């Protein structure tokens, strides 16, 4: 056989024909649309596909667009609050459910915490629309609170997972030693558990932040009039002619996500 085909490369156990090409195609396909989106945010013309020269005018247009700035600030505040709340309660829940002997209800707690990962967003959105609409009518209160509560809820499992993972990898000897030396529960938590757990908590908070910033479906159903976030604003723009202004906004939002995700990887990597 080998003689028939002439010189042949050394036989590789791992080689499968075509796999490398498909993999390369995947990487190109994953990045090409995003790169094109970013490139055209610098386009001078008003159409997305025709390149008319470099310009920052769409960034300036977005910056001067009050609706965009308003939505951006609301998105960031919402993501910050949702990440803060979900991380605090997820940390507590992680401590209450990890490194403990099994007790009645532990499985139910796990199921409840992971439930937002399973239920389709549209179903949660509809459910919150129904419930919050009734509450809004009953109380007359239309505020930002509903969005914060909704976002905090679906962020909990994302904050919980890295914290729990970190906690599982910590052994109890240090805490036991502290307790043996008459440190109070709170002291042990403050001086031993919390510092050791901190990378997990940071990772959970960043994940929650990105997930909240990303959300469009649940927000769309929960928001009251005048409570646009950046993603719902962008979705609304679809009905009009799309200009590169959308690309400029997207590029900025991409940068924010990328920054947070890179931080996340740095924080989680350091733990080993």
């Amino acid at each position, binding site marked *: 056989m080998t003689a028939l085909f002439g010189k042949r490369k050394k*036989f590789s*156990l791992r*080689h*499968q*024909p075509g796999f*490398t090409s*498909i993999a390369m195609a*995947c*990487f190109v396909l*994953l990045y090409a*649309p*995003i790169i*094109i*989106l970013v490139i*055209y945010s610098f386009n001078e013309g008003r*159409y997305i*596909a*025709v390149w008319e020269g470099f310009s920052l005018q769409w960034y300036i247009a977005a910056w001067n667009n009050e609706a965009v700035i308003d939505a951006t600030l609301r998105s960031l505040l919402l993501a910050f609050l949702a990440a803060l*709340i*979900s991380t*605090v*309660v997820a940390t*507590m*829940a992680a401590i*209450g*459910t990890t490194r*403990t002997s099994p007790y009645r209800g532990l499985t139910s707690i796990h199921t*409840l*915490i992971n439930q937002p990962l*399973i*239920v*389709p*967003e*549209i*179903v*949660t959105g*509809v*459910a*919150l*629309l*129904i*419930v919050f609409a009734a509450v809004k009518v009953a109380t007359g209160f239309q505020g930002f609170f509903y969005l914060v*509560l909704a976002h*905090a*809820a*679906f962020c909990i499992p994302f904050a919980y997972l890295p914290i729990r993972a970190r906690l599982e990898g910590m052994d109890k000897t240090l805490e036991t030693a502290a307790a043996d030396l008459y440190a109070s529960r709170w002291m042990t938590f403050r001086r031993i558990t919390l510092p050791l757990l901190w990378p997990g908590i940071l990772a959970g908070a960043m994940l929650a932040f*990105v997930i909240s*910033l*990303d959300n469009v*479906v649940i927000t769309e159903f929960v928001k009251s009039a005048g409570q646009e976030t950046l*993603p719902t604003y*962008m*979705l609304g723009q*679809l009905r009009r002619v*799309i200009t590169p202004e959308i690309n400029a906004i*997207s590029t900025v939002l991409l940068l924010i*996500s*990328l920054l947070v*995700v890179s931080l996340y*990887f740095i924080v989680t990597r350091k733990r080993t």
Partner: protein
Amino acid sequence: MASDQLRKGEVRRNWLLSTPALIILLSAASGPLLVVLVYSFLTPGEYGGVVWQFSWDAWISVIFERDIFDDTISIADAHLTILWRSVSLSLMTTVVTFILGFPTAYFIATRPPQNRNLWLFLITIPFWTNLLIRTFAVLEVIRNEGVINTALIAMGIIETPIQILYTDTAIMIGMTYVYLPLMVLPIYASMERLNFNLVEAAYDLYATRLKVLWRVIVPLVKPGIVAGSILVFVPSLGTFVTPRVLGGGKKLMLSNLIELQFGSGRNWPLGAALSITLLAMVMVALIIYIRTTQRDQATSK
């Protein structure tokens, strides 16, 4: 006795620690789902909302429609078309992401260990960037004035743009693009633990490359394949943004039909019944998944 009391105290402390999270989840995630179930058995209000009167109508109209003139009941073609589109497009997306994702996971798993994290990072990054933005990016590539059509026309291959946007194909391309990392990651996780001595043994026994792939590698990484398929299929079934942006309101999927009932359709009970239907479909997929993994674990023991 003393240790019993200690243990009781510990359990109570654990419950107290979980309570704030549970309150938030029950009030803004799990609890409202029960309300949806209740609403699906009520009568629609004239301007949206509901009238508190029991009715099966919403559930009947998930699949059937009542003729306005003679009250006869027939199968609702429109709803079935949308249900079928949701299921078939999700299945097709799962297959395509597998065809693309399996070789990609294999590629990453066969890199030298110190390079694997970089490739993995490259797969993960798009996954953490905004879903809406990624869908917009696809929109700009495939639309009539988009990059593909403009390039093809400039090269003289076609004269009029190919209409991809607002078709089922567009939705499938979008979902494949968005969910591909969800297929690659679990397959990679299985593949990383693959013992290549088994592959070597198969070659020693004169297996061809294709045989090694299908009879050795695929069965060994099957848990990853099943997990990846579920991770792609389940969110595809409930996807909302992709058909909204790339289907342009013409090609609806289940979630868009649900939204319609709460908007211009003004039929909240039907929307609620459709939501429960979607949730039930997701549950069925998950139960099948759990059954398969349990059976596999049982047989491998």
